């Protein structure tokens, strides 16, 4: 038995909440994960997902990604690197590094 003790806990949302979308294309089919949509509320997530999948789906679920705990049987695909290390400039650094044509 796999332990499924590797949780993929990095956030999925880019601009607003993210919603995992599951569809069934026929009542006899399994429910399948088909990606995620960004939306501020479940209602809008439903609209967004329907615009993409209602053509063929008979069942559609939208689940908040931040409440969807993802576990792998093995370490996550990208290895265990921690999200958001200190590789990125601070706001002050960006400000002072930005060229504005001073030395042209």
């Amino acid at each position, binding site marked *: 038995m796999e332990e499924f003790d590797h949780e993929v806990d990095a956030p999925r949302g880019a601009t607003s909440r993210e919603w995992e979308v599951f569809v069934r294309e026929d009542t006899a089919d399994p429910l*399948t994960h088909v990606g995620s949509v*960004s939306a501020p509320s479940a209602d809008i997530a439903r609209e967004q997902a329907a615009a993409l999948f209602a053509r063929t789906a008979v069942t559609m679920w939208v689940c908040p990604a931040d409440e969807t705990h993802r576990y792998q049987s093995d370490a996550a695909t990208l290895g265990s690197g921690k999200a*958001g290390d200190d590789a*990125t400039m601070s706001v002050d650094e*960006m400000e002072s590094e930005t060229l504005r044509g001073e030395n042209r």
Partner: protein
Amino acid sequence: MISVSKLLCDLDAEGDGLRYDAANESTKRQIRDEKQRRPVVVWNVTKQCNLYCDHCYAAADTEIADGELSTAEGKSLLDDLADYGAPVVLFSGGEPLVRQDLEELVTYANEVGVRPVLSTNGTLITEERAQSLKDAGLKYAGVSVDGLPERNDDFRGVDGAFEGAVQGIENCLDAGLKTGLRYTITERNAADLEGVVDLLTDVGVDRFCFYHLDYGGRGTEIVDADLTPEDRRQAVKRVCDMTREYHDRGEEIETLLVGNYADAAYLVEYAREHMSDAQAQRVYEYLRVNGGDPTGERVADVDYQGNVHLTQFWQGYSLGNVRDRSFGDIWEDESNPLLTALRNREEHLTGKCADCRYAEVCRGASRLRALTVEDDLFAPDPQCYLEEEEVHGPPPFDTGENSMAGESSAD
């Protein structure tokens, strides 16, 4: 990506358009093989940016966002892309230069055999960074400028952004790095187009990519600021005219159009009206092999959190995340009905696209704009600017075997 300079200025009677189409078995096989080609992958390495542009599809922020892929994860992603056979990775953002490990990632992409290119606002390319990027093996930098100084700075939300970008371009050119312009055409800046090209050719730039606005990210707020279809037609005509004028003067600038494959249809019409039927046919043949809008096929996007998108502009929907599953597994998973439908979109297009004579070279242009404006994934692109009489009728030339294949690039 449609090369205007190639289609209107370089495709002569012996040009590669016709050669490529020589309809013998071996060429057909080659065309079928081309269809298997892997996508160019845009990787938004960060959501953070030092500017605040109105039309930013990534809705970038000045603050670091949660969940950015770390250096180690980024390298694993590049391994993943190399394993899958992605030919090119386009480092984008946010502003990719805010990541101080960018050079390390560029070096790594080179090592694993994925060609690294860059999309940047240019204002962080100091002499030192231009040199370190060149040393890391960066192959190309596309620098965004969206109008003459006043207009550009207004658009980008920072005074001096134009001058800063030009300084960044000069630093790239001095370091020996191939550099081009990215210009997103909107109602506000369409008038500046020739002025910016004149100004930057003086600086030494010889490659100009003109982007149509796609309606994702912050862009959705400025759908209203986009050109009308009529004005778009004029702007594209001006790009065509300008390209030919430069070439006539012996200045062989490269000009490209990105983000609206109705341009493919228009270029055929343009060649017919302003050049010759023979030229129009060459243009058509070339574009037919090029294969129309590449969304979900020849271009892909991975955002700063590892979410995979159908194009860099389509951030509101993600196919999956590379922290859960390899890029290749996600991209190949045609149990996703949306992916399958997009890859067979000619069966689903409605309205004037369904029987458009240019459907083979255009494929309905932007599905994202249709979705955003019409709330219908397979409606005609609202920014199609072809005239009614131009889209009706049989294909303009007898083309033999149907083919959807060809080159793509996303820089």
